[in-house]
């Protein structure tokens, strides 16, 4: 018994929980990693961060990602999941679209591809001269875009990066929502149909309220991921993009720690990121609760 619980717990405490706790302490020191001196400087790191324009740009970019990525991904995957599950005949048994299995399998592909590879592939797709996107666009007659640098122009770099992340995750959430929708008893849909509800009405009034908890969970996971976004952003634009337009907190943290050796400051950034994550999760719970969802945490 003790071994069953003890061994995993020790590993977990040493390599996950204790680093979290240490990071909070280091964030209050000006430790540079070269010696064992950790001068305690209180909140000075945080003051420095909030006066650092580039860090504030990174915070802004991360917040932009946390606002847009979950909304876009969840809506897109909900629409696709709805099409697959209740797009079939409105007569007889409630059933999905023909060929639904095919779409399900294809849609999940991006999720199994390593994020690094997704970043590299899309980096090439966006390539100004030899990329697939500009190739297709000039083929369609948009000659003005012949060598447009999607990732190299501060007006489009952020949007182009978001497209990549959405591409990577829509399929996963689509599968998740399909599973949830299939969990709704067919009688519920039949009753709605007998009462005269059309497909759109059914989707809005039956499906979404009934899979509300799944939507909430998906929304929070996607938000946590958007606040990280390290792999995608660093592969697509390793230095933070034109005019830092795609720099995120995670990237800034990584260079501050492992290139500059300012470990205390980097830990303070980690605390800011963790705080944003908790605020985000809290807001999602709050909104769900205020709009009438169940209050329990989905466990």
């Amino acid at each position, binding site marked *: 018994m003790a071994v069953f619980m003890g061994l995993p717990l020790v*590993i977990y405490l040493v390599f996950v929980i204790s*680093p979290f706790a240490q990071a909070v302490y280091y964030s209050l020191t000006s430790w540079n990693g070269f010696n064992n001196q950790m001068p305690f400087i209180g909140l000075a790191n945080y003051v420095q961060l909030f006066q650092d324009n580039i860090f504030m740009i990174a915070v802004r970019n991360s917040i932009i990602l946390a606002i847009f990525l979950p909304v876009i991904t969840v809506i897109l995957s909900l629409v696709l999941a709805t099409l697959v599950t209740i797009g079939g005949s409105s007569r007889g048994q409630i059933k999905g679209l023909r060929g639904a299995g095919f779409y399900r399998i294809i849609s999940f592909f991006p999720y199994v591809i*390593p994020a690094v590879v997704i970043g590299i592939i899309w980096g090439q797709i966006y390539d100004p001269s030899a990329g697939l996107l*500009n190739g297709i666009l000039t083929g369609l007659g948009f000659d003005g875009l012949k060598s447009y640098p999607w990732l190299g122009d501060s007006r489009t770099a952020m949007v182009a990066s978001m497209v990549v992340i959405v591409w990577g995750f829509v399929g996963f959430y689509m599968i998740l929502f399909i599973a949830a929708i299939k969990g709704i008893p067919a009688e519920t849909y039949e009753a709605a149909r007998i009462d005269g509800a059309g497909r759109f009405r059914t989707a809005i009034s039956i499906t979404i309220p009934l899979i509300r908890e799944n939507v909430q969970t998906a929304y929070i996971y996607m938000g946590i991921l958007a606040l990280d976004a390290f792999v995608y952003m660093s592969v697509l634009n390793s230095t933070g993009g034109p005019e830092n337009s795609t720099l995120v907190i995670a990237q800034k943290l990584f260079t501050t720690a492992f290139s500059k050796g300012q470990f205390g400051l980097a830990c303070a950034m980690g605390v800011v990121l963790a705080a944003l994550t908790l605020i985000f999760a809290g807001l999602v719970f709050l909104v769900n609760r205020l709009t009438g969802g169940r209050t329990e945490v989905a466990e």
Partner: protein
Amino acid sequence: MTLKLSNTTPPVQGHVQRKARETRADKTVAGVSHVLLALWALMVLIPLAWTLLSSFKTTKEIFASPFSLPEHWSFTNYVTAWATAGIGSYFLNTVIVVGCALVIVMVLGAMCAYVLARYAFRGSRAIYYLMLAGLTFPIFLAIVPLFFILKNIGLLNTLPGLIIVYVAFALPFTVFFLFAFFQALPTEISEAAQIDGAGEWRTFFQVMLPMARPGMASVAIFNFLGLWNQYLIPVAINTDQDHWVLSQGIAAFAGQQGYAVDFGSMFAAAVIVVVPVLVAYIFFQRQLQGSVSAGTMK
């Protein structure tokens, strides 16, 4: 009167009429749905097909046109990527690290989840919340201290160091998922095993674990994907090039931009990384789809 009317219209005919009318609307909806879903499927497939095509082209051909076919279909790029660029040895490292971490985390996670789900003891609630914290807090908060913990115990830049960190960070997800699973298993069976004289170890390994196999399989697949695709942890704590994993090796390709990058080999390396996971996915996809649904029923 009404009775007479209904007698004159046979129900079969009415049914057929209604069916015909509805089918047209159905066809429109189905048509639109198919168009939208097919567009999405193309969005997914075209970048992948293009990557595959480019992996057979020379760098010169890649820059000439994004659509041109390679002049010679050969596996030169694959050979270069595998041997010269070291993707082969990164592949081996990844297999070792992910394989070991997966086995360890499944055993430890299952034991932990089993105890949490089966026994009420002081602090079990606290452990549960600690696991929840591990799922919520960003890994970036831990990364700096983690670096120094490994340095102090001499496991920095080693494969065992990477394995143990993988295990630790995959543990909360594993425990959470299996916790629900073990809770749902009937208690009578473990009681019966105990009455028959099986100790705790035997009850767990010979009775309970085999019963939890479907749950174990699902968690194992998700852990495999997560660990195989892991990038941040190795980049931070495994910087010795001899010990690199695949994601680091392929990122190094992209990182060379500006120098003479062999783009053909880069695409080939991407294919080498993607194909095993994609094949594994297609092979296990039924299992995986089932597990997503199991995951949402929690």
